């Protein structure tokens, strides 16, 4: 439906070698996270007592080494990456849809409604994030789906602010006035004329928020609030490796390098996407 905008953005994105390279690496990492474990003879939770904390090498079946319990790091890192990616994507989608609806309504309707809705956002963003997540964990118990929801539920605040600002500037545009004059209802205007026109900046923000969320999940898991053993995310693997940094540095390095590469590429890709959508800046 949005052929014009999307087409131009895609063309500009392809002209940006850093963004294209980043996108390729992201695709490779994601593909590896899903397909990679098939090439290894090891199971995620299998303990190999004959190779405990063995270093990386081709002499045994554990190419990237094992941890203190003899679990294969290659397989565990990829499994952890799947969890981290899922958290990043689902939480971004949650914050995207919540923020988009909330912000578009507040910005388009304006006036007192806007005031009340933005004060609610301010109150919510005043709450300390960590305590909020701890509170939810205590209330509902630890689960992966709760992690998705709680991170997404916090992330939508910024998204709502961005969308609201965009909607506010669109509200007085002539084509919105023309839509009002041609008898379109507010709901139709919001979802057909306001939301699609804020989608560009919103998608850029969403792309840039995926690495933030992955990082935040790693942080929560590091603190022991996120993913629990025997499941692993990149964050828990790093936390585990941090304890062994002197004796077996690879336990930290393997998931650490994977996470760093993923975050770096996501950020470069997000920046490229931002440039691609902001056509005026480049001309």
């Amino acid at each position: 439906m949005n052929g014009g905008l999307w087409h131009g953005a895609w063309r500009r994105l392809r002209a940006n070698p850093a963004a294209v390279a980043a996108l390729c690496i992201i695709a490779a990492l994601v593909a590896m996270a899903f397909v990679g474990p098939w090439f290894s003879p090891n199971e995620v939770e299998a303990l190999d007592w004959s190779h405990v904390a063995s270093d990386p090498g081709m002499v045994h079946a554990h190419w990237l080494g094992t941890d203190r319990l003899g679990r294969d790091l290659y397989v565990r890192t990829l499994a952890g990456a799947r969890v981290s990616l899922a958290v990043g994507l689902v939480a971004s989608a949650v914050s995207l849809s919540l923020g988009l609806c909330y912000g578009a309504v507040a910005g388009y309707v304006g006036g007192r409604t806007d005031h009340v809705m933005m004060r609610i956002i301010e109150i919510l963003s005043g709450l300390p994030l960590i305590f909020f997540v701890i509170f939810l964990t205590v209330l509902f118990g630890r689960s992966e789906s709760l992690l998705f929801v709680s991170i997404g539920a916090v992330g939508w605040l910024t998204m709502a602010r961005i969308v609201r600002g965009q909607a506010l500037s669109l509200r007085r545009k002539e084509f919105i006035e023309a839509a009002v004059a041609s008898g379109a209802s507010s709901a139709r205007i919001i979802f057909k004329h306001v939301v699609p026109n804020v989608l560009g900046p919103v998608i850029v923000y969403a792309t840039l928020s995926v690495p933030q969320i992955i990082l935040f999940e790693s942080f929560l898991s590091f603190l022991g609030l996120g993913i629990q053993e025997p499941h692993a995310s990149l964050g828990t693997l790093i936390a585990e490796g941090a304890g062994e940094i002197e004796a077996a540095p690879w336990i930290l390095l393997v998931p650490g390098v994977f996470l760093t590469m993923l975050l770096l590429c996501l950020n470069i890709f997000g920046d490229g996407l931002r440039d691609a959508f902001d056509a005026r800046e480049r001309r």
Partner: protein
Amino acid sequence: MRPGGAGISPPPADAAAALCVTNLEVSYARPDGTVAAVRDVSLSVGPRECIGIVGESGSGKTQVFMAAMGLLAENARARGSVRFEGAEILGLAPHPLNRVRGSRLTMIFQDPMTSLTPHLKIGVQLAEVLVAHRGSSWREAKREALEALERVRVPEPQRRLRQYPHELSGGMRQRVMIAMSLLGRPSLLIADEPTSALDVTVQAQIIDLLRMLRVELGMAVALISHDLGVVAGLADRIVVMYAGRVVESARAGDLLRSARHPYSALLLQCVPNLRDARLERMPCLPGQPPDPAAPERGCAFAPRCPRASERCARERPALRDLDGAAQVACHHPLSP
């Protein structure tokens, strides 16, 4: 329906009029006080009639019709009455208002470059109006959209349906806006400076198009413009506004030949004319229109008026009939 000047008789206007504005006041609340944009305006547009509303920027000519369409800003207050096809529409909630606006009562705007939603194809935007108002199927609506583009003489209409607004020229976009406004078979089309953003040859084409469509579809047109030249080509009757009030209302031919209000006469002198092209300077109106926030005293035009007397500064002239041919708000009208 419009014998002589009868269509312009004040307030208790005929129920048959397409649009009947009575004692309309529009004011804006600002932190530093209230600003009056429209002061006690009454006018009516008869069925199939084309009226031209002329005035400087800030004379309130657009505000009258924005009030009718429910498009005033949030800090605006409108009082009085606006009846469309006999029913009161001033101050109506959006939902009931949406039943008439966009179908029976439509409006096109000054800047066609920004009046179309940028991310939707022309065909979708046109069809959406029918889907929203009439509940037509998309397929049916698309077919009618094509007919609508043909009606406004857009070349290659089939291709235009698949194009985005930025792929069309200004004149083409204004044609699309007109096509959109005609989809609901309006009885009144409000055209707010429809040609001001276009270049002169395209202006003439759009005015020609409006003239043809008006006859073809039998609709009334309210043409708002600061340019008497544009209005002269289309309007049956011309209403001149100054500082939020109607100062003269007369049949177009009469007004263009011999304006009765000094302001209208001066406006006419300001229309560039090939015969006077050798004049060294364009004639222009000296002075500034009054501050809309200031209280009214006497005739608003008096400070700029060559015929002003001491009475004009004291006493505001009421709109009155002159020889049954024109209505003029002036103590010292020009003789025909």
